[in-house]
């Protein structure tokens, strides 16, 4: 009886705290003295119009996010370690909302996109602010969300509050006025805006990571010399591959929109029914790799089959590409 009770208590604690053990999708890691903040972000384009504009919208948002959040001057701590932000984005299969991401992409923040002037909360774009208790962010943006809007929302995904309030008449009031300087992205989403060093400090502190500095960094002059504003932005399009009796070949593209050379490799075992034209390669900054995936229908009996390609990159990022085949007439 006593044993059962202990098991029950352990089970109960695990169930209650499970999300905190597994969810964390703004990651802070250090490589030498370089600190990298990576935001994993999935988009769910809910209707036909938003789906059609998916690539264009994701492109505008990611470009502006990286432009606003990567400053060469950003550094952290006594060693002045350079900090840069990267995004790993993914688009959910058509028709799937963020509940799909909760199930299949628990490591990603997720944003539903709607083709409406405002979302259900009356906003252009919103996302929950992450904290130690709520490490995944969910929100709803519209097809009319701008790059600056998106950059403001990424701030929330880094754990930052909005730096504005409205007075009794609804007029906007800046709570973090930068006298004589460019104003904070967390205070406003128009005109010229910038992210601030204090944002980066807070984001690193809120990430829950211990001070991610290597012990031998302090006092090493190399630390201060290695300021850089590199950013990687990898995307795979489409975000899933579905084959059927009639469609047995599909092309998918890996985009390197960052500033680093990336090598990649499909590390997962391929299912027997799938062949790829390439399983490894290198992509220059701004370039893309096209890979032909071919389903071998003769290798499977009638039914639905699901698999996943795991693509690993030289910067240690990883993208998972779900693959499906529906066979109704077997050979």
């Amino acid at each position, binding site marked *: 009886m006593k044993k059962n009770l202990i098991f029950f208590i352990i089970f109960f604690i695990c169930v209650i705290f499970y999300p905190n053990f597994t969810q964390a999708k703004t990651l802070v890691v250090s490589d030498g003295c370089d600190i990298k903040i990576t935001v994993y972000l999935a988009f769910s384009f809910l209707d036909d119009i938003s789906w059609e504009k998916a690539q264009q919208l994701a492109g505008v948002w990611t470009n502006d996010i990286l432009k606003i959040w990567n400053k060469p001057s950003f550094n952290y701590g006594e060693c002045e370690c350079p900090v840069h932000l990267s995004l790993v984005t993914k688009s959910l299969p058509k028709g799937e909302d963020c509940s799909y991401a909760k199930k299949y992409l628990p490591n990603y923040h997720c944003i539903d996109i709607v083709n409406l002037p405002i979302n259900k909360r009356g906003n252009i774009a919103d996302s929950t602010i992450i904290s130690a208790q709520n490490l995944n962010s969910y929100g709803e943006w519209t097809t009319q969300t701008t790059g600056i809007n998106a950059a403001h929302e990424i701030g929330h995904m880094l754990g930052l509050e909005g730096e504005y309030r409205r007075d009794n008449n609804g007029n906007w009031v800046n709570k973090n006025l930068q006298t004589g300087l460019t104003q904070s992205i967390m205070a406003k989403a*128009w005109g010229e805006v910038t992210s601030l060093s204090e944002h980066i400090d807070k984001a690193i502190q809120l990430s829950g990571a211990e001070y991610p500095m290597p012990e031998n960094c302090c006092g090493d002059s190399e630390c201060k010399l290695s300021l850089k504003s590199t950013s990687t932005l990898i995307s795979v399009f489409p975000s899933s591959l579905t084959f059927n009796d009639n469609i047995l070949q599909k092309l998918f593209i890996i985009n390197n929109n960052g500033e680093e050379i990336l090598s990649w490799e499909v590390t997962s075992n391929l299912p027997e029914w799938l062949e790829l034209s390439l399983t490894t390669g290198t992509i220059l900054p701004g370039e893309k790799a096209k890979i032909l995936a071919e389903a071998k229908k003769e290798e499977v009996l009638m039914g639905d089959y699901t698999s996943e390609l795991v693509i690993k990159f030289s910067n240690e990022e990883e993208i998972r590409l779900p693959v499906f085949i529906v066979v109704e007439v077997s050979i």
Partner: protein
Amino acid sequence: MSQKKIIFFIIFILIGLSVIFVWKNSQKPQVEEESVRDQIFSVISDFDFSDPKSFYSISDIGDLGGEETLVVLQELIKSKSVSDRWAAIVLLPKILKNNDSFKKEVFSSLRYGLNDENDTLKMLTGAQFVSLGEKDGLPALISSLNSNETTHFGEPPELVKDRSLIYLHHYTSYDGEIFDEWQKWWDDNKEILSWNESLEIFEIK
């Protein structure tokens, strides 16, 4: 207690619970109608300009299909309170999501917003109209290009004129930038604009 008494007691409890269940269900429709009205006013009463997030609770209002909801929103769109009017402008189009039969009433109520003295509300009403394929919203969006105010509602904060231009670009295929260009475009094309259902934009016939 004898076994007979225990069985009698359980049956008594079950009958009692059944009576309460039936009675509660018979009251349900009235409770639901009441609750939509109460819900709307409860949400609105918590709006606080110093806490922009207090307005997010507008999404907590559930069923918007009922006639009573329409009556409440018709009151709110004429309210002196800017927050009440904002709630009406946000919620009115949602009535049409599940119930097209109130289209005439919704548009006629929403029309008040096109002349709202608050720039944000006027611009937002214009956008709501246009997103539903009603070109009457375009002049409100075009005149909002002259506004110098920041948006009074919604995250993230923007300039009314910037947001208005984004809506105009999104819902038409014209790439004008300033008020004069848009006004001329409207004057030249207002009679020949038609709504493309599949693309959800206005096109010149």
